[in-house]
Structures are given as C-alpha cells and as structure tokens.
C-alpha cells in the first residue's frame, strides 16, 4: 500500500541518494567530557550533538527539591557557528522549547522516584547542524545518562521522520526540510522507547493526511530500532 502511494509522489529520489528508510551514517561515542558524570557524542550525517550529564546531585536551593522524586533539567543549546548564518548565542524561544520537550521525552525512562531531593542536569550542545538536532541531542543524552549510571527503565532513541510531497522518509536533512514541490516537506521528530515501544516525543509541522499517519509511526519505530543498536554498541565500547 505504501509503495503504491509513494509512486505517485513527486519526490522519487532522495537528494543524497539514500533509500527512503535509510539513515545517515551514525557515529556514537561515550565518555567525551571527562569532568561530567556521563557524556556522549552522537553524529548522524552532518548533525553532531554532544551531551553531558551532571548528577544526580543535591538540588539547591533546597526549596526547589522534590521530596518524592528527582528533577531532570535539560539545557539544549546550538553553538553560534553550528549553522550557516550565525545565530545569536544564548537562550532563544526555540531552544527553550526544545529543552522542555527533551526533558519530557527523557524523564519517563529515568527512575526519578528513586532519587528524591536530587537533580540531574543534562547539557546538550549542537556543534554542527544539518536537521534533526533535537533528535541527535536526545540520542546523545540517553547514552550520557547510561554512561553516568543513572537508573533507567529502558533505552530511548529519537529520529526525525519526514514527508516529502507524498513520500515518507527517515532521518531528514536540512535540504529535505526545505523541499517545496507538491505538498512540500513535513517534519516529524519522535522518540520510541526500546522495550515498551511507547512514544515520549512527538512534534509535527507541515501537512499530512491523517490516513498516512500510521506509516509515519511505523517508519519511526523501525528507524529508532536501528539507532538503538548504535547506541548500545557505543555503550559497550566504553573503557
């Protein structure tokens, strides 16, 4: 059914020659920030994210503590030189939102109820950006959490699924995000948990017929499975 619909699409071949469900080349490594309790770098094609975890540690000021469960704080930041036109350093509305959705994506798998009164700080920095930075950030952060030995229920992987005109593709690039033919580009970043197959991040912008949505979720599940293998492999390589 997918194939039949895809044939009518204007987007017949991907700009970088990948198959529709093929991911960009992935490089992942943990232990890249010696000062941190856990850290990881995750590269997917031209997108590079580095994440560091500090904690669990006592949360100060004390009145911010939660006696029932720990607090997860995510700080997502794009370096000013990570994109074409320089972006102003510091917090933007966009980065605030991404920090928050990343927090929401990660906190279900961290056993925060076992860490009352503490905070876990996750710092995500984007060194080089070519779409899918929030997903690369989550992938790096998940590995950094494991590396720090933070108790987790399962692993998490993130991917940006796209729809170029009528074609559903995995792991979109910036060039694809700007595709304008037919129905144009739709960008759908999402996460899948490795065991329960639940979704903890889902955003969308663009236009997609409701009847196509199941294909998107299925593509995301497949892609996240593949990404998960890279994350696990890198975690096993830690010295």
């Amino acid at each position, binding site marked *: 059914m997918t194939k039949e619909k895809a044939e009518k699409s204007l987007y017949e071949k991907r700009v970088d020659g990948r198959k529709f469900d093929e991911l960009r080349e992935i490089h992942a490594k943990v232990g890249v920030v010696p000062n941190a309790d856990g850290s990881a770098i995750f590269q997917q094609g031209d997108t590079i994210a580095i994440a560091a975890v500090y904690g669990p540690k006592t949360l100060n000021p004390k009145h911010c503590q939660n006696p029932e469960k720990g607090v997860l704080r995510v700080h997502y930041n794009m370096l000013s030189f990570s994109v074409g036109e320089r972006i102003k350093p510091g917090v933007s509305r966009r980065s605030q*939102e991404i920090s928050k959705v990343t927090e929401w994506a990660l906190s*279900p798998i961290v056993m925060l109820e076992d860490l009352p009164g503490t905070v876990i700080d996750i710092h995500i920095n984007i060194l080089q950006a070519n779409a899918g930075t929030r997903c690369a950030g989550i992938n790096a952060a998940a590995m950094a959490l494991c590396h720090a030995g933070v108790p987790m229920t399962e692993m998490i992987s993130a991917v940006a699924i796209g729809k170029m005109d009528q074609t559903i593709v995995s792991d979109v690039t910036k060039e694809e995000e700007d595709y304008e033919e037919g129905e144009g580009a739709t960008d759908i970043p999402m996460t899948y948990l490795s065991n329960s197959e*639940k*979704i*903890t991040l889902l955003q*969308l*912008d663009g*236009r997609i017929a409701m009847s196509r949505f199941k294909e998107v979720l299925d593509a995301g599940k497949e892609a996240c499975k593949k990404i998960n293998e890279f994350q696990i492999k890198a975690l096993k390589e830690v010295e």
Partner: protein
Amino acid sequence: MVYNVTKKNVIEALNKGERTDMRGLFEHRPIQIQFGVSNKAEGSVRVKIGKTEVVAGIKMATSEPYTDHENEGTMVTSMELLPLSSPNFEYGQPTIEAVEIARIVDRGIRESGFIDFKKLCIKEGEKVWSVFIDLATINDDGSLIDASALAAILALLTAKKPVYDEKEDKISFGEFTDEKLPLNLDKMPLTMTFFKLGDKIFTDPTREEEDSSDGRLTIEISKPAKEEYVNAMQKGGEACFTQDEILNILEEGKKIYKKLNSLVEEEIKKFDKGAKKKYENSK
C-alpha cells in the same frame, strides 16, 4: 502543582468515564465568543471556555522582509500569562509555559497556509506587512492552548487592515479599511489538545484536571480537501503514548474539528453581518 486529594478525585471521576464536573471525556465546556475587545486593534476577540478566558488582538505594522523570504509578510505570535488571571502567574520574563503556547499557536497557523504571506508583500525585498498576534489570559481554568489557538484564528478572521499611505510609509492607526487579511478560508486550522492521566484520555481540562494529568498531545487540523490534514503536533508533559492511542486521538480529533469548525463559521457570519452595517454607517 496539584494536591494529591485533587488528583485522586480527578482519577476517580475518569475511571467512571466522566469528569469532576460531570462532563464526558471529550465533551468541552460551553464556549463563548465576543469580538472587539479593543477598537484600537486591527482585530480582537475574547474567548471563554468555561471559566477560562483568553483575549487575542491583531496589530499590524510595516517592516523589512526576512532575507530568505523577500516577497512575504511576517507573523509574530506572543503570549502573556497575566498575573491578573491566576495566582500561579508572576511578573517577569515570559515563562516556558507562555513561550510554548505562543509557539504552538504560531506553528499551527503558519504550517496550515492559512495566511497568504505573499499577499502581505508591499514592495519585494523592501517592505512587507507584519502581523502580530498577541494573546493574553484574563482567567485561567485550564485548556489555555486550545483557547489561545481559537482566539488567534477568530481575531485573524475578523481583522481589517489599517489605512496605509505607501508614499509616506505611514499607517493611520485607528482608521480601518474594509479589507480583510489575505486568508485561505478553506484551510481553517483548528487546534485541540488531548490530555492523558493513567490510561484515560480526555479534552478541555479544568486547571485541576490539567495539573493532575501526566501529559498531553496537541494536534492542529485543517481540512483543505475531503480528508483532514494534520499541520502541527506537540507532545507535552511526561506521559508516554502508544501508537494506538495516537491513532485514536486523530480519529477523535476529526469529530472535534467538525464541531469547532461550525462554531467558528457561525460566529464569523454573525460578525460579518454586524461589521458591514457598522462600516456603511461610518461612511
């Protein structure tokens, strides 16, 4: 923050398939709409959903276009969670809650193609119209995303361009033309948020229900052809969703879209009738 006892009451009601105020899971509170909260604004509206009340105002200005969209007007959406509307809101920098609402509303309108930005170009590369959608809370009792999104759409639908002198590049604020904004009415983007608590999913929560919930999924739908399209989505909060839950939410979204759409059409028809009379009288 929510008291355990409140959350317990919310869960007990949901388990019976109803709400603390006896509504059904997908039954929204009464919606009241009143246009013209400020006669200085190009368009303005007050939306009440139950006890929640949000105002939206459209202001316009001319500006330079962005370098990568030289023949397109611009749009800026902002949200203020006014301390007047709740003891939970405080003065200071916009909080992440306010920023997120503004961004969700903005994305829904932008991605649906509701505004024809090319028609907001005055002189390519030099001068375009900027549309400011400013939202503010008057009373908070939950569902601020949906109330804000609805208010933004209604304000846009009723906005009239101000009188503009192109030679002098001067806008005569407070004087309006009879010209509406360039909107693609067939794309009417409407927003609805589904909340999750345990394994129960419901819409239009009160503040107590919203604070008790584990998380939410906002979807923005338009219906440019026979089938409904999704133009924007955002998962919020710590809840996890299964694939089936998401697909069910989309189905439920279609039904809500239909209801909301007829409400908007009706209100706009009423407004247009009144506005025509008013415009003719002013001449």
